[in-house]
């Protein structure tokens, strides 16, 4: 039940040392005395700011700010303000500063828990004006590496930062740069993977649209580190605005001499071209992407050799994701130590997630690695609409899996997610409530991967279709108990034997829902029941008529 009043007691360190705990306890006791516990909520908050005026307290919805509280004041506040609705003027703070805090606390906590590094410029600067980017320190990192650092130092800095690929697999970026630098070749390339294909994920789009120069700068720094002169950005055709802004950004960078020959009057030259994808999901896989840039059919090939050894036109090629490149300038400017101080032991920095599904605030959020799923869904996402029950999150899109509500306190990093049977992926997070059928969800993602399989290798082309058919049967009420075993066995086989990441990860949605929501599968098969009410079961006509017939005979 919603309370009539919310009393926010500041529990920042300064207020606590000023005895705010006593105030809170007293408040609790006095409210109880007057039987107001059900009407008034006490909320302990983080530091509100004006520590020198503590202990402080804020009352909503009135927006009254009390300062320098003593235990003896509490009784008066309850009797006058809570019961009679007359704020205690003597203790009230009414300066503009207080008004600001009152307003601030009311705001959506969406932005509060976020830490914006990659997205810091998105929504702030004009992406079509290079000077606004320069105003916030743009191209300073490039200037720094070209004038003060050797390529080896740049690579060492990247390794020390602990940055891992943001495209999904999480390979250490610095190591990739090192391998590419050390590969023999007269010519090398830098490629930016902007073929963001996961349904619901749009962090790369937001970066390319909102801060395209940060990607260009990251690529130029990488080119200097590995010894490349030419770069390509591969963007999907479905992102016309991103392409337009990036095109404009490249032109402006050329005009300002930040791309082209002898950048910052050094011997370093670098330029970038855009290549537009034709809408195939598999082209996000690096070897397929290379084939597509070369003008061939977008199909993956076996690895090794890795692109770092033999990539574009057989030359050593560095491929990183848009978000990975966007991190580079911040690491160079603020140092690897700073970057490594954010996040967890094995996953450093921040990650941008695309939050969607059954959650109040949807959109892009950038949070430090190691934040829990609960914080993401409830604090930033604002919880589940219509008081529905939180069921699970689907992380990593068609290559990822579901994490059930029981594991909501799991910190989000590469390793923890892997343990739970999902992957970080590109960062799509779909929140599911009690109205989501897990079998149907697995079917939805399978439908997508079956459609997007390039058809080159058998496990992916035929295996996935078979998985899909079984799921389809179960959701229509024709499933058999043996199907569950087949799903698991076949899923494992596909995972083990597919040629590329698409097939290797495509069974994840099925396997993870089977792991955590097996009873739902069983309900579908045995009881022809879908607890979410999503699946429509077909009645088998022959079965009914046969029974009827038998009844007539006996």
């Amino acid at each position, binding site marked *: 039940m919603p309370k009539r009043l919310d009393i926010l007691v500041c529990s920042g360190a300064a207020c606590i040392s000023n005895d705010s705990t006593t105030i809170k306890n007293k408040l609790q006791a006095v409210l109880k005395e007057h039987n107001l516990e059900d009407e008034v909520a006490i909320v302990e908050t983080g530091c509100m700011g004006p520590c020198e005026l503590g202990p402080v307290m804020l009352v909503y919805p009135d927006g009254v700010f009390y300062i320098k509280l003593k235990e003896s004041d509490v009784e008066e506040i309850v009797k006058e303000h809570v019961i009679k609705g007359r704020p205690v003027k003597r203790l009230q703070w009414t300066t503009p500063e207080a008004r*600001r805090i009152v*307003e601030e606390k009311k705001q959506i906590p969406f932005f509060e828990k976020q830490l914006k590094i990659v997205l810091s410029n998105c929504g702030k600067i004009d992406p079509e004006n290079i000077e606004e980017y320069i105003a916030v320190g743009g191209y*300073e990192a490039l200037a720094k590496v070209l004038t003060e650092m050797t390529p080896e130092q740049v690579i060492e800095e990247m390794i020390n930062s602990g940055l891992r690929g943001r495209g999904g697999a999480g390979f250490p970026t610095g190591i990739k740069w090192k391998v590419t630098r050390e590969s023999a070749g007269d010519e090398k390339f830098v490629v930016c993977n902007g073929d963001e294909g996961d349904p619901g994920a749009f962090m790369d789009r937001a*970066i390319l649209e909102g801060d395209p120069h940060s990607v260009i700068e990251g690529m130029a720094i990488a080119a200097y580190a590995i010894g490349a002169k030419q770069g390509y950005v591969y963007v999907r055709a479905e992102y016309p605005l991103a392409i337009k*802004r990036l095109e404009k950004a490249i032109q402006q960078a050329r005009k300002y001499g930040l791309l082209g020959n002898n950048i910052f009057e050094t011997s370093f030259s670098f330029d970038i071209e855009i290549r537009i994808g034709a809408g195939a999901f598999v082209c996000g896989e690096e070897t397929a992407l290379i084939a597509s840039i070369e003008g061939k059919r977008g199909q993956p090939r076996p690895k090794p050799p890795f692109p770092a050894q033999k990539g574009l036109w057989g030359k050593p090629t560095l491929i990183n994701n848009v978000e990975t490149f966007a991190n580079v300038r911040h690491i160079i400017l603020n140092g690897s130590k700073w970057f490594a101080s954010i996040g967890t032991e094995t996953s450093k920095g921040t990650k941008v997630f695309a939050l969607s599904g059954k959650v109040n605030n949807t959109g892009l959020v950038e949070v430090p690695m190691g934040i829990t799923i609960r914080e993401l869904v409830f604090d930033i996402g604002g919880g589940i609409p219509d008081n529905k029950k939180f069921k699970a999150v689907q992380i990593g899109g068609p290559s990822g899996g579901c994490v059930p509500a029981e594991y909501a306190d799991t910190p989000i990093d590469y390793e923890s997610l892997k343990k739970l049977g999902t992957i970080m992926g590109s960062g799509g997070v779909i929140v599911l409530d009690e109205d989501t059928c897990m079998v149907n969800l697995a079917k939805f993602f399978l439908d997508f991967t079956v459609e997007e399989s390039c058809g080159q290798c058998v496990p992916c082309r035929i295996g996935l279709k078979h998985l899909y058919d079984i799921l389809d049967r179960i959701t229509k009420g024709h499933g058999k108990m043996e199907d569950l075993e087949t799903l698991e066995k076949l899923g494992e086989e596909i995972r083990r034997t597919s040629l590329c990441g698409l097939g290797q990860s495509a069974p994840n949605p099925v396997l993870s829902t089977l792991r955590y929501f097996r009873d739902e599968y069983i309900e579908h098969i045995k009881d022809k029941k879908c607890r979410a009410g999503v699946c429509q079961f077909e009645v088998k006509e022959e079965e009914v008529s046969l029974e009827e017939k038998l009844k007539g005979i006996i």
Partner: protein
Amino acid sequence: MKLEDLRKIREKAEKELKLREGKARVKIVVGMGTSGIAAGAREVLKAFIDEVEKRNLQDVIVTQSGEKGLSSHEPIAEVWEEGKPIVVYGNLTPDAARRIVAEHIVNGNPVTEYVIEVKEA
């Protein structure tokens, strides 16, 4: 481009961004990412420009940016005023944009029902 050139541009552009020595007193930044545009940011941007022109507000500039992330509250716009915290508005309509120009920018009263964040400049 030399290193000194970059620093010079930065110095100049920083001032413009912070409005200190620029001509403008107020800057309206409309989020023009795909999410914003899909939610109607173009109409909102047009309404801002139109209203600013109609009132002949010489010291107000209307500009664009990418998206901030909060897609469910698009279209989103920020109002930057010299020496004041930045006010972020969400769920905007062309009418709301006109009200913001009239009530917030001309008369100094933010339109609270559309405010989603107030942050330090």
